[in-house]
């Protein structure tokens, strides 16, 4: 087969909803796009542990602490599923970690915002994990098999994350006026960054068209963002909190809620590394990796020693 017919038969498979597996032919650009997307996704899970780890020792009860620990452990697991999926495309774990640690690879901008009160644990679980689920559910049917299988596993585990966050918000919203204010403040601060998690507007998103054609993505950034706004408004009402954006209004004609334009300058500024916590997050991550070096070396040395003993 010529290059052209390889690509035509690849697109035909995609159009027929046949999953692509690691050893199958795929265009270089498809491979590159997937490596970028899956590794960014993995990095987001790993860096995403940091803002929440910040509150584990200060959780207000043993129940909340156990739940938060379990959630953060899940995020670590999700990172591993995704790194494994990316490795099937021919990049090594070390290469990906190197890209993360040198700042060459991106992770979700949301994790560059600080977690300053306990209510932020509620808002993150509810809004940030909620937005992630909205993104991830369609990815369970993405065209690359290992990625789709990893996402099925992730989605199964993710729904408790959102519920525990909403429960935290609910307790605070029904609590003292000060607690309710804390919940409102967290909602107000996390609302716009959570909406930005869906990525830039379709009109300026450089990768959307190709990713849709290859069925890596099933819905555009704007479609998912709108869907998230529509379901979340109702959840805010049930909490009894004020809407975080005065321009949220039901639009009968569109059948959706309207809302304010997001501050895209802020978005690009955080993507470029100038968010409130970019440097701190990366430094913490690099320190964890370097502090763990002796553990990795010791485990390798121990495995080697046992191997030689067995051989003798």
């Amino acid at each position, binding site marked *: 087969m010529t290059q052209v017919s390889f690509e035509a038969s690849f697109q035909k498979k995609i159009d027929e909803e046949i999953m692509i*597996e690691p*050893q*199958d*032919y795929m265009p270089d650009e498809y491979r590159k796009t997937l490596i970028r997307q899956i590794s960014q996704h993995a990095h987001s899970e790993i860096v995403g542990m940091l803002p929440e780890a910040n509150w584990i020792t200060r959780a207000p009860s043993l129940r909340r602490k156990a739940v938060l620990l*379990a959630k953060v*452990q*899940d995020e670590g*697991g999700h990172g*591993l*599923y995704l790194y*494994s999926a990316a*490795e099937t495309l021919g990049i*090594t*774990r*070390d*290469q990906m*970690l*190197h890209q993360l*640690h*040198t700042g060459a690879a991106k992770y979700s901008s949301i994790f560059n915002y600080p977690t300053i009160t306990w209510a932020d644990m509620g808002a993150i679980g509810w809004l940030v994990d909620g937005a992630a689920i909205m993104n991830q559910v369609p990815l369970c049917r993405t065209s690359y098999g290992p990625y789709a*299988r*990893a996402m099925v*596993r992730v989605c199964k*585990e993710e729904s408790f994350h959102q519920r525990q966050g909403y429960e935290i918000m609910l307790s605070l919203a029904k609590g003292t006026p000060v607690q309710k204010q804390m919940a409102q403040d967290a909602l107000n601060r996390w609302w716009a960054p959570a909406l930005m998690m869906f990525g830039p507007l379709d009109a300026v998103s450089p990768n959307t068209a190709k990713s849709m054609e290859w069925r890596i993505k099933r819905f555009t950034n704007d479609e998912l963002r709108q869907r998230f706004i529509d379901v979340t408004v109702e959840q805010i009402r049930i909490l009894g909190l004020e809407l975080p954006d005065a321009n949220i209004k039901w639009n009968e004609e569109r059948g959706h809620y309207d809302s304010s334009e997001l501050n895209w300058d802020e978005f690009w500024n955080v993507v470029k590394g100038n968010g409130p916590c970019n440097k701190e997050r990366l430094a913490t991550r*690099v320190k964890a*990796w*370097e502090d763990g*070096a002796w553990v*990795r*070396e010791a*485990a*390798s040395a*121990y*495995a080697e020693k*046992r*191997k030689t003993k067995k051989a003798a």
Partner: protein
Amino acid sequence: MSNENKEWPLWEVFIRSKAGLDHKHAGSLHAADAQMAIESARDVYTRRMEGISIWVVESKHIHASNPEEAAAFFDPAQDKIYRHPTFYNLPDELKHM
């Protein structure tokens, strides 16, 4: 900082979800040795009681059929519909078989 070439080997993880079922491929992970692979597999793949038994095998030991030859390789089964029970015409009044 990067630990090039010192990566722990890759292992494939298979999990039996309950007695009587096959071990099924769950995913992969890096570990220094088999013991560590099994313990990590427990932490990564069975946090919600998904398994009662784990197998791990180093990925390099797995051999696979070639996807490019799949059409020819699986061709012998293509035209043998008589291997399926629905191939046989039996009278309608025959209720149990």
